[in-house]
């Protein structure tokens, strides 16, 4: 660990701690329907939105109504985006004249699903595929809506714990509108201006062609970047305006913008733990969750940064300086932005995969095997290490239910959490959510690792990369593994990472895989839908069941859940469930690769 890394970690967690309490308390007021300092300026817009939608914000929805409203809203916006993407050629704000040729049906499906599910997986290169309209309307609507939906689901689950003998878990429409107006909008306005001040462009100009110092011509992509960048990070969306994402100097111009981005990604996921504590009437419950998330996060950061800083035996054998000095960063710099170096890159990798953000400022495919294992494992935990906005908290609460159940089995304590008895149905729902994620990751990874599509005939098209849309020629692949840059263990990791990212709604990629084919776009699309909605539904069912229960008073048999002991148990459950479920997959990928790396170095 370098001094820079230690200072960065201390600074990062210090700022997060400072933000968590005030923002968490503010969000609790917003979702309890209390008046805040922004109601004077935005109250009329909230009331007008309800009137325009014909919504009664005071209607207390049963969990099934809440769930169906969420599903129908998501489907409607998904289809809207699909149609808008396919029609981008005839829609405005398209100075580069992109059309349906760049956005074939399978890619439009993947992209619309990707943004609806807060994944922002990008099988395409945005700079040569998307019009400004597609970016600002077809996709940006989801950057807001999917973030608001994730937070709304978390709030509904919190209400399940907080309410007693209640039939409802809140109003989906009111939660989404309040989140958008009072949480996302003001923070994006301020953050977007700060991004502009740091050098991120915000314009509608056509791409600029410049003459380089060598006399060549270079096209520089421009556009309304800052307004996209802020919601991309704040809403843990992650879809880049440019193909290089946050490694691009127009998305992430400096070390300051890099730190700002890191903070913005975890601002809401960290703060909502305090919202949870406030709404259930015991702030220490929120801090226990925060502590468990922070412990998992810090462990991953230390492993990832250390592995990248250590470099590889091959670099040592080639007599390349791997120790950090005043003039160079040392370690494994392959795939990393030279402006940032190792610690800010490895920290970014762990933050973006702990959250379901998926923005990247370095290429995870080029990390050392153990360094790359950490982002992969972060996603395989179900994105609960602070996690996506809302999604991290509801995922961690799912693990909390499992933790009190396991504690009950091990030490004979009554399975209770926040005064609610955890019974058969709650455990069934928590297990269902866990198993759905595991099944999606493992089944799709196994299929793509083994399926061999014919090289000719109708089925061959399932694995064809439409290169002609970009001025090249179409490439035909046989096996789905034919799209990989690497064979063997690293190639397997590329596929495993892809479906872990899709199911976890992360969106980052190992990047060594050409995913813009009908096979990958369709299966990744399905994995994103399963990972988002088939996890949310059982958690809403749990919220509905919990809200109906009465609160039981703590007794000598109650396992306290607002202590460091519980936070430790929660960490253990997350690690054990993750390890037991995915150890075989991790063994075939990064673990084998690590030993191969050591063996190659010694033979």
């Amino acid at each position, binding site marked *: 660990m370098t001094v820079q890394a230690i200072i960065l970690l201390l600074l990062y967690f210090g700022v997060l701690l400072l933000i968590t309490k005030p923002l968490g308390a503010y969000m609790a007021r917003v979702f309890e329907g209390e008046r805040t300092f922004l109601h004077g300026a935005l109250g009329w817009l909230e009331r007008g939105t309800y009137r325009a939608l014909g919504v009664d914000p005071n209607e207390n929805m049963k969990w*099934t109504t809440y769930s169906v409203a969420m599903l129908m809203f998501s489907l409607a916006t998904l*289809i809207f985006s699909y149609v808008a993407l396919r029609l981008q050629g005839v829609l405005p704000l398209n100075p580069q004249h992109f059309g349906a040729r760049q956005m074939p*049906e399978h890619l439009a499906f993947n992209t619309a699903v990707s943004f609806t599910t807060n994944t922002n997986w990008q099988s395409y290169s945005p700079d040569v595929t998307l019009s400004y309209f597609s970016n600002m309307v077809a996709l940006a609507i989801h950057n807001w809506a999917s973030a608001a939906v994730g937070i709304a689901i978390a709030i509904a689950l919190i209400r399940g714990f907080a309410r007693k003998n209640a039939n409802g878990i809140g109003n989906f429409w009111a939660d989404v509108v309040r989140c958008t107006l009072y949480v996302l909008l003001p923070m994006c306005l301020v953050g977007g201006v700060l991004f502009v001040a740091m050098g991120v462009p915000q314009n509608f100009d056509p791409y600029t062609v410049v003459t380089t110092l060598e006399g060549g011509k270079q096209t520089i992509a421009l556009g309304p970047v800052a307004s996209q960048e802020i919601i991309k990070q704040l809403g843990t969306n992650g879809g880049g305006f440019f193909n290089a994402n946050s490694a691009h100097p127009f998305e992430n111009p400096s070390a300051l913008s890099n730190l700002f981005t890191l903070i913005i990604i975890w601002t809401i996921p960290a703060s909502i733990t305090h919202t949870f504590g406030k709404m259930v009437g015991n702030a220490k419950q929120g801090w226990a969750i925060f502590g468990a998330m922070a412990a998992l996060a810090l462990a991953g950061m230390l492993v990832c940064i250390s592995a990248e800083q250590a470099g590889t035996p091959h670099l040592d054998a080639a007599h390349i300086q791997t120790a950090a000095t005043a003039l160079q960063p040392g370690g494994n710099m392959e795939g990393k932005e030279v402006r940032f170096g190792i610690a800010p890159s490895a920290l970014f990798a762990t933050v973006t995969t702990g959250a379901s953000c998926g923005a990247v400022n370095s290429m995870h495919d080029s990390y050392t095997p153990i360094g790359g294992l950490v982002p992969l494992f972060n996603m395989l935990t179900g994105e609960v290490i602070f996690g996506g906005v809302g999604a991290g908290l509801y995922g961690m609460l799912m693990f909390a239910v499992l933790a009190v159940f396991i504690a009950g089995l091990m030490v004979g304590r009554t399975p209770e959490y926040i005064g609610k008895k955890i019974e058969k*149905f709650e455990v069934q729902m928590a297990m269902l959510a866990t198993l759905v994620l595991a099944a999606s990751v493992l089944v799709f990874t196994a299929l793509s690792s083994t399926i061999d599509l014919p090289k000719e005939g109708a089925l061959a098209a399932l694995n064809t990369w439409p290169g002609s849309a970009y001025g090249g020629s179409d490439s035909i692949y046989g096996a789905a593994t034919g799209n990989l840059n690497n064979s063997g263990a690293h190639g397997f990791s590329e596929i495993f990472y892809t479906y872990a990212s899709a199911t976890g709604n992360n969106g980052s990629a190992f990047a060594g895989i050409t995913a813009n084919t009908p096979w990958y776009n369709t299966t990744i699309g399905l994995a994103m839908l399963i990972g988002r909605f*088939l996890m949310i539904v*059982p958690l*809403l069912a749990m919220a509905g069941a919990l809200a109906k229960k009465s609160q039981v008073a703590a007794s000598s048999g109650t396992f306290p859940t607002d202590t460091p002991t519980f936070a430790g148990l929660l960490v253990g459950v997350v690690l054990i469930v993750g390890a037991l479920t995915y150890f075989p997959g991790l063994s075939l990928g990064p673990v084998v690769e690590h030993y191969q790396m050591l063996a190659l170095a010694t033979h």
Partner: protein
Amino acid sequence: MTDLIFIAIAIAFFVVAIAYTHGCEKLRRGSDD
């Protein structure tokens, strides 16, 4: 035609998700009894 297939896949998924919602509710009512 291919557009309709992909839109149909999306709609079919959400129909399944709504059925899944009602399946979970049925399970909850069963556990109440």
